[in-house]
């Protein structure tokens, strides 16, 4: 169906894009700083990219997982509770 435009997929795609973006921003920043301060970086530039990407991705993934396992069931049970109370009303 319209899987590729579903909110979930968009969020997923945005996360990936954000990760890549932060990778390049970080490598760029460290390169510039190293040139500016005339020092050699501790690690290869790509590691700074990974480092920032990880900080973008990992908390987001953790949050998404928590959301999936906590929020969705809560929503459903809330709806269920509402429905039950509706059903118990005499019609």
């Amino acid at each position, binding site marked *: 169906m319209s899987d590729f435009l579903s*909110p979930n997929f968009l*969020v997923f795609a*945005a*996360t990936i894009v*954000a990760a890549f973006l*932060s990778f390049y*921003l*970080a490598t760029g*920043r*460290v390169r510039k*700083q*190293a040139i500016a*301060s005339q*020092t*050699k*970086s*501790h*690690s*290869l530039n790509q*590691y*700074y990219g*990974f*480092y*920032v990407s*990880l*900080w*973008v991705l*990992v*908390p*987001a993934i953790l*949050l*998404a997982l928590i*959301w999936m396992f906590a*929020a*969705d069931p809560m*929503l*459903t049970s*809330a*709806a*269920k509770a*509402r*429905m039950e109370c*509706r*059903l118990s009303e005499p019609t």
Partner: protein
Amino acid sequence: MAQLVNIAAGYIKAPDAVMAAQAELLRAAQASADRARSLTLAAVMCVGFFYAFWRVSPELRARVLCEAFLRRLFFLSAVVAILTTIGIVASLLFEAVRFFREISLFDFFFGTHWSPMTALRPGDTAAADEFVAGSSGSFGMVPVMAGTLLVAVIAMAVAVPIGLFSAIYTSEFASRRVRNIVKPTLEVLAGVPTVVYGFFAALTAAPFFRDLGLVVGLDVSSQSALAAGGVMGIMIIPFISSLSDDVITAVPQSLRDGAYGLGSTRGETIIRVVLPAAFPGLVGAFLLAISRAIGETMIVVMAAGVAANMTINPLESVTTVTVQIVMLLTGDNEFDSVKTLSAFALGMTLFVITLLLNVAALTASRRLGQRYE
């Protein structure tokens, strides 16, 4: 409730207005929750990004930090094995404990009458349902366990001689070329999915045994333990043959030399020296095979019976632990009934038994390993 979720997702049409309204509400709630989630995610990503970006400088030990993270991730992956075990134990225990609140441990493990489906018979009232489910007679697992053992014993009776002698041949007599052909061929038997064996047992072996019984004047059930166990034996042959072959090959050549040097024939060397030396490993292999046989599901589900008969006659129909688990958990049963809970109690028993067998097998093989390090 599942229906409501499906309606909200647009999979099915709402049967009535109330449901439709509810579904609409649920959908709205889901949509707002989705928005909230997206915003939160974006916020978290921004915070993470700015924190890390601000910290980036040539002095930052980025590689060390990345590797520390990866190492932790790797560790967590390894811990998944523990989590799985915990998950198994916890889920089985949780449901089994709920079961044992209704049925006493003693009645379950020592009761000799198993008929969890009794309550489903037409004519039984809800009260009778309560009564039967709660009564001590219905959930006695002894006949189920007996059936499991009977099938496993038949399977081992087929598999042990064939597997062991095959292993003796491939490891001691066969030339390398023959061995390279025979071993993979036998292992094909292990690669055949169990559902295929089940199909063969139910639709070929069982009718064959029944007809054979008619010819010689024996009354063989069309779901005889013999058919299920026999076919299971075929399935287990490669386990025994390849494990035994490994074990026999691991016996040091010096022992064979010693025996030959004293004037043993090849047969005497094998029977009197090699096999006794390999004995602990062979026991380990057999235990693993028994564990396989007890835990095997599809063959018995398709070819063994459902009724729990207490018998040691292989021509009759028996049921097994795995068959009962499948029977109790397929179809639309309520998840919380004593019946479905009993499946978890059976599952727990099965898990414990196979675990003990595996540990015993491991200990046995380890003893062999120590002897010839």
